[in-house]
């Protein structure tokens, strides 16, 4: 049961990373592929009205953490206190810029929100990447079973660590590049015209950067937490995830080579989900790893809720999931198709 809920939690986080990932990526590459205010509107329109639904996956993953692993939530969230709020404020800014950026037909208004949208998405990617880096590297969990992270300490990835050190910054940079590439692939698929053409070139460069950085990050992770890889080798589920990531990257390259936009985009989704899946399988059952002493690590078994709660939630959760996927698919269908620009009005 605990294993199942760990899987559900990771699945929801991966769904969030893939789906909101392309929105974040669109934001990061916005000024690179969309040069005029109209093109930037086109990009926002390509993101479409489902972005809130994508963001709900993060909130709902938090809900799953609450229902299944309240102790983990109660240790992790105050531990990351400041970073969590910076992330929340960025998500707030992102929501405002998406919703309100188009309300006024005024160039200063639009410039302001376009720049805000690009900046907060970059920050969101950095924060999510750093968060992932922190979970992989571990946290200064002591005998009290709690921790409180500063933004930075001495930038070394061991002992009394901070949120930012050489390793987590590296993961954050990789995340930014990866989500930017993912966003560019999305725009290749969903737009036409100049934005599409620029996205094609940018997606190719960014995915090359991702595949170059990938071994570097893998090596860095092996240095910081070598036991992850010994675990990975012993677990067939992790192999499946790795195969998924590799197959995904092959699809990305193949799709780009043959101009198959959707194939390339799906490959990117599989790549991201595969990487996160491999990481999740390898860390299990540890949810919060201690950099001070592995004995203080918090596992899924220790963090899971007692009583019939997990079983009861398993009755309603699948129902809600199926309904949710239904809504998302339906609305997506209504807004499907490429987004283009009307010919400029004659002056």
């Amino acid at each position, binding site marked *: 049961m605990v294993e199942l809920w760990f899987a559900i939690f990771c699945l929801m986080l991966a769904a969030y990373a893939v789906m909101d990932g392309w929105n974040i990526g669109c934001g990061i590459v916005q000024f690179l592929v969309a040069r005029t205010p109209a093109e930037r509107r086109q990009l926002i329109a390509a993101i479409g009205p489902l972005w809130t639904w994508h963001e709900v996956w993060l909130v709902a993953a938090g809900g799953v953490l609450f*229902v299944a692993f309240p102790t983990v939530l109660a240790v992790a969230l105050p531990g990351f206190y400041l970073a969590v709020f910076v992330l929340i404020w960025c998500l707030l800014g992102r929501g405002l810029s998406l919703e309100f950026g*188009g309300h006024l037909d005024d160039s200063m208004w639009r410039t302001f929100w376009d720049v805000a949208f690009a900046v907060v998405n970059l920050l969101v990617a950095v924060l999510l990447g750093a968060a992932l880096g922190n979970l992989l590297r571990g946290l200064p969990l002591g005998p009290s079973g709690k921790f409180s992270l500063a933004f930075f300490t001495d930038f070394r990835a061991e002992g009394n660590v901070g949120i930012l050190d050489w390793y987590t910054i590296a993961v954050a940079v990789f995340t930014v590049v990866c989500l930017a590439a993912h966003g560019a692939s999305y725009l290749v698929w969903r737009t036409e015209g100049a934005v599409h053409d620029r996205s094609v070139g940018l997606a190719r460069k960014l995915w090359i950067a991702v595949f170059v950085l990938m071994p570097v990050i893998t090596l860095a992770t092996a240095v910081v937490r070598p036991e992850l890889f010994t675990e990975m080798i012993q677990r067939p589920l992790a192999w499946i995830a790795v195969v998924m990531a590799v197959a995904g990257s092959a699809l990305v390259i193949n799709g780009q080579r043959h101009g198959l936009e959707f194939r390339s985009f799906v490959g990117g989704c599989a790549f991201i989900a595969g990487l996160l899946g491999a990481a999740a399988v390898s860390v299990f059952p540890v949810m919060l790893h201690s950099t001070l002493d592995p004995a203080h690590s918090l596992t899924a078994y220790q963090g899971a809720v007692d009583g019939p709660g997990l079983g009861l939630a398993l009755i*309603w959760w699948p129902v809600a999931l199926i309904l949710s996927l239904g809504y998302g698919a339906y609305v997506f269908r209504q807004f499907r198709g490429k987004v283009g620009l009307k010919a400029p009005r004659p002056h």
Partner: protein
Amino acid sequence: MDDPAFWHRLQFAFTITYHYLFPQLTMGLAPFLVLWRWRALKTGNEAYAQAARFWSRIFGINFALGVVTGIPMEFQFGTNWSEFSKYSGGVIGQTLAMEGMFAFFLESAFVGAMVWGERRLGPTKHFIATCLTALGAWLSAYFILVTNAFMQHPVGYEVTPQGTLVIGDLAAYLLNPWAFVLFAHNQAAALVTGAFVVASVGAFYALRGEHKAQARVYVEWGTAMGLLSAVLVAFPTGDIQAKYVARYQEVALAAMEGRFESGPQAQLNLIGQPNVKMRRLDNPIALPGVLSFLAFGTFHSNVRGLNDFPEDQWPTNIELLYYSFHVMAGLGTIFIGLMGLANLQRLRGKLMETKLLLWALMLALPFPYIANTAGWMTAELGRQPWLIWGLFRTSQGYSDVVSQGDALFTLIGFAGLYAAIGLLYLFLIGREVLHGPATDHEPDSLYPEVVNG
């Protein structure tokens, strides 16, 4: 401020109070949109479609603010109240997760389709999208109110050997009678906000002589819904709620009324200032026996005063609790009076010519917000010193690893950010209202330069 939980409490109070300014209008407007779309679909009357279209734009702006101010609430259970989350997550996690899975997914998927998708979806599907958005908003309220009801009146839980709470009986937890009453009372109050806002904008147009046909729709529907919901807030929902408090939270009732001495034929204090140090109510103007009647149904029942309870069980801010309750109840009474008058004139066919009433309706706009806020302050201050009534104190619940400096840092951040987005909201809503309902079929894309946007 010596209380280590002080900044955490202030931050949660501030962010939740601010957040709830938006959902109350979202939930209050949703039935209007559903009803107008329904009328438009049935009768083909373009005025209703136009009304729905105009209020959908307001709804969209309001909804967006509700989302962005709502996300911090979810996180703050963990960041600021981690000991509470650890203690009770096994129970309240169920409804917090359900809210995300059942309600947020539903409303987030359809709100965009509702605001932007009229032409794309066609009238029938668009009507369904409107209904589903409304359903999501109201469902979300139910789950969060079940969570709150558990904090007010815990049921359906079990205590583990480690001393934490886990779910024992999910059905009992979800069907907590306190949650039903709270939901009915709160949703009626949200409808009051929606109705007053609709009527207020209608009155504004009517007084300016603009958008006359639309102004009439807004004023008439707003006052009809306003009277219905204002009555429902008081009776039966508010009445039952008060009886529950009298039965299960005796000490809270005493503090709400500024009642220190126990005794029969308890008076209902209309005005007065609690003087906690001297343990009395200064300058009271009161109705004898009425509190006994409202609390227990007879004029001579004994209602206990604060002196009957040890001080460590007293709500921690009796003065604020007293005023919150009286502001809520006082405004609620005025709402019934104002809407009653408006409906009287409406039935006589003279409402749109009664300038004084239109002015009153227009200027009444802020008061349902104040009443809703005061109502929630009554519930939450009355619950103190408990986080979960009788089980877990507020002083046990905050995150002890978060420094006072960090907590104040984020509170200041929220204060600045929320001031800015409040101005933004007023600007955008004001712009929509001044622009008014469009007479033509508006493009449903926010981006006129985009194809398939």
